């Protein structure tokens, strides 16, 4: 099937010199991070009537967006830099969410040994074995990274060893997330079935709905995003990053040069899954619910569109993309609810046809033109 891997691949210009980031870009990033970090303070310290007061629901909303941005960043690592299109990253997001959710469900009960409500309802008499230790937050947080990481590792090991690439791989990831969704929808599986986990009350002893806790979760998400950005930058600007880009641009040639791509792919794939899981874990307490529809194939595809809209292979792009698309979604579903799907669909089509480099690519080109025009 030559058409799949023909050399008519569009090679992004910046793949040749991944300088992340130029000093100007660092300045911009710091500014933006600073502004975002201050927002919860505007919510907590300013009275409601103050014109600069930031409403509670805005903080929750932005916190959610930051988690999505983190997930998009994780996806960009594998897609933008290693050329592995995963249509099942929602699974890792959800697994992280469920892992953290298990702790939150245990924490919502007054007595630590007590069963969560949905188990009582299903006539379970004791905590299933995979729920042990989840009353300890540290264990749960470990699980947040381990669960998606393990699943990704096993799946990736076999997939990459068998040299499954391109469209086949993407479809298989869809199958994986779909199967997992069906599994989690089953009430017998022990994860709350269709209702999932909800009704959280406490996190680490703090009331989960108080503005202070919300601000704390917001800052944690922001920190995680920043951390992921730095980790991503470290990976992609290192030698490992060069190999990954070689995988994306010409895996066959890389093999002929003596490298074994499977190991590199597996590494970045697992790291990406863990970051995604982290995003999910931070998302769940801010939204208050996790249920198997997070694993739906459609969700994972939407994540890909965040990355594509922002600009893949840039690390900043997916963050911008996640913010833009979700902002649009929030706005459209309130103002023009009947037209939201048209807008989203049109966005998909326009971005892939007209804007293959995404928003960041467009900005870059504009800046280059401006610079070129000046000289």
């Amino acid at each position, binding site marked *: 099937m030559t058409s799949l891997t023909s050399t008519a691949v569009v090679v992004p210009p910046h793949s040749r010199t991944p300088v992340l980031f130029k000093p100007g870009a660092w300045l911009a990033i710091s500014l933006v991070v600073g502004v975002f970090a201050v927002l919860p303070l505007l919510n907590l310290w300013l009275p409601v009537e103050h014109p600069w007061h930031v409403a509670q629901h805005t903080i929750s909303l932005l916190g959610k967006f930051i988690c999505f941005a983190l997930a998009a960043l994780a996806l960009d690592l594998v897609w933008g830099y290693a050329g592995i299109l995963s249509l099942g990253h929602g699974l890792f997001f959800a697994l992280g969410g469920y892992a953290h959710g298990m702790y939150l469900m245990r924490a919502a009960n007054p007595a630590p040994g007590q069963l969560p409500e949905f188990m009582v309802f299903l006539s379970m008499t004791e905590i299933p074995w995979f729920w042990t230790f989840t009353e300890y937050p540290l264990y749960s947080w470990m699980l947040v990274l381990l669960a998606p990481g393990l699943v990704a590792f096993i799946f990736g090991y076999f997939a990459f060893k068998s040299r499954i690439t391109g469209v086949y791989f993407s479809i298989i990831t869809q199958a994986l997330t779909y199967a997992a969704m069906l599994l989690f929808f089953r009430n017998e599986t022990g994860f709350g079935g269709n209702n999932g986990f909800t009704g959280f009350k406490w996190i680490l002893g703090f009331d989960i709905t108080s503005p202070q806790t919300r601000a704390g979760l917001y800052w944690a998400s922001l920190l995680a995003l920043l951390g992921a950005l730095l980790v991503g930058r470290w990976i992609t600007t290192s030698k490992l990053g060069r190999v990954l880009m070689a995988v994306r641009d010409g895996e*066959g040639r890389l093999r002929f040069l003596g490298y074994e791509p499977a190991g590199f792919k597996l590494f970045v794939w697992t790291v990406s899954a863990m970051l995604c899981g982290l995003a999910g874990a931070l998302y769940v307490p801010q939204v208050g619910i996790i249920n198997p529809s997070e694993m739906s194939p459609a969700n994972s595809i939407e994540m890909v569109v965040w990355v594509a809209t922002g600009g893949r292979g840039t690390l900043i792009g997916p963050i911008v993309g996640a913010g833009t698309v979700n902002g649009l979604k929030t706005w459209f579903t309130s103002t023009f609810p009947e037209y939201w799907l048209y807008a989203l669909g049109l966005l998909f089509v326009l971005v892939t046809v007209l804007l293959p480099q995404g928003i960041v690519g467009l900005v870059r080109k504009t800046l280059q033109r401006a610079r070129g025009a000046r000289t």
Partner: protein
Amino acid sequence: MGSRVLRWICACIWVWMASAHATTSLDPELAKQLTASQISQRLGAIETMGQSGSPQAAKVLEALTLANVFVTPQGRVFLDSKPPIDVLTGEPVAQIPEAAERVRLNNRLRGALQTEVAYALLFAERPDTQIQAARQLQSRPDATRVFILQRALDASSNTEVRDAIAVSMAIASLQSDDLAMKLDAIEQLGDSGRGQFKVALQALLAQSDNGTFDQPPSVRDATALALEKIERQQTIQTWLGNLFFGLSMGSVLLLAALGLAIIFGLMGVINMAHGELLMIGAYSTYLVQSAVQAWWPAGIDFYILFAIPVAFVVTACVGMVLEKTVIRWLYGRPLETLLATWGVSLILIQAVRSIFGAQNVEVANPNWMSGGWQVMGDLVVSYNRIYIFFFALFVVAVLWLALNHTRIGLFMRAITQNRRMANCVGVPTERVDMFAFGLGAGIAGLGGVALSQLGNVGPDLGRTYIVDSFMVVVLGGVGQLAGTVIAALSLGTINKLIEPMSGAVIAKIAILVFIILFIQKRPQGIFAPKGRSAEA
């Protein structure tokens, strides 16, 4: 011997009574009782009418099975057809009188009604009506009316009808005192292989409280034998049934995935809007049905034959438009095509939702596709699924002919094997692409026609089949029709074989896991494309 004479005498009396009543009209009080408030009263009315044997009563009972029936306080009975008919005289009337009350039926009444009517229908003209009537009586054995069955048996010469009536008589005779008749009945029931007689037969093996058996050993042995026969039949039926269900599900998957396989094989494009093409095919069927209903109501049973070409053409056009406007710009970028087509699918879903509403639309099965074929005993295989199975094979056959015996098919195969080379030797790839996309889309439309006969037609129709279609394509590999066919049929069969044991969800998950594992071993699917191609 004695009892036979007795029966004959009863039959004579019954006939005499029937003929004696032939000229008298229906008792108005009895007719009025049909609209009584208590269900038991209405039930009594129906049963009395049935047992009276009067032709007038029979007409009323028959009318009750057809449509709404209204009864005036004077006892006149009207059928709410177009135009309304006075049941007792048979004359059409302009309209039903205001004072008439509707006869309200519920399941219990309908069951009794069907039984009463069945006794009369045993003597109907058409054999399948008689068989249906006999079957109806099998579930409601009435020992006191066995003689009617006997009369019907004697009156008929059709073997199937006689068999059906014999079984009905057998179940009614289980309680009789005549030993020979009883044993005969037990054997007949055993041979029928129908599970519905198990309970009645098992009752014969019952013990009373003090430990003694109710029935003599000869009866018990015969019963045990009969039960064994039924069990064996049932096992065979279960396996055959599962096999058929699997093939049926496989044929549905095949129709759903075939179009996708063609497009994928040719252009390496995974068309995420494929599900929506299925949906458009289904909605085209709906529109054809509406059109036929409006302009040629008599031909409503044949709307499907019009729907097939219409759906094909409509979806083919949509596919070609899609190719020209979106896919064309994304050559060599299969992953982007995937995303773009997903966007198109969202737009199509919302468009259909805006035009037709978010609710499902009604697509009825034509008469000749409703019901089922009773293969053996309890195994009933629905007609619509049989037709869909053969339709799927037909589509595959036509496709095979098109691919292997036409010029454009030749081009398509060439492009699938090596696009660059085909281009070099002069194959007009762009035109062939557009045509192939149209063909794949058209087949998806045909799949949509089939799906409209099986389940809901709504904006989300495509979403429920898209993942399955992918799995078939991925498993079947590309370049060979056979791959898709085998993949679809196997997936359907395996799913249906697992389902009775572990439930629908686990079966589905197992299939998905199986595919994931299979792909590890054979990444290109069952039928991998042959030939030299530089794989990165």
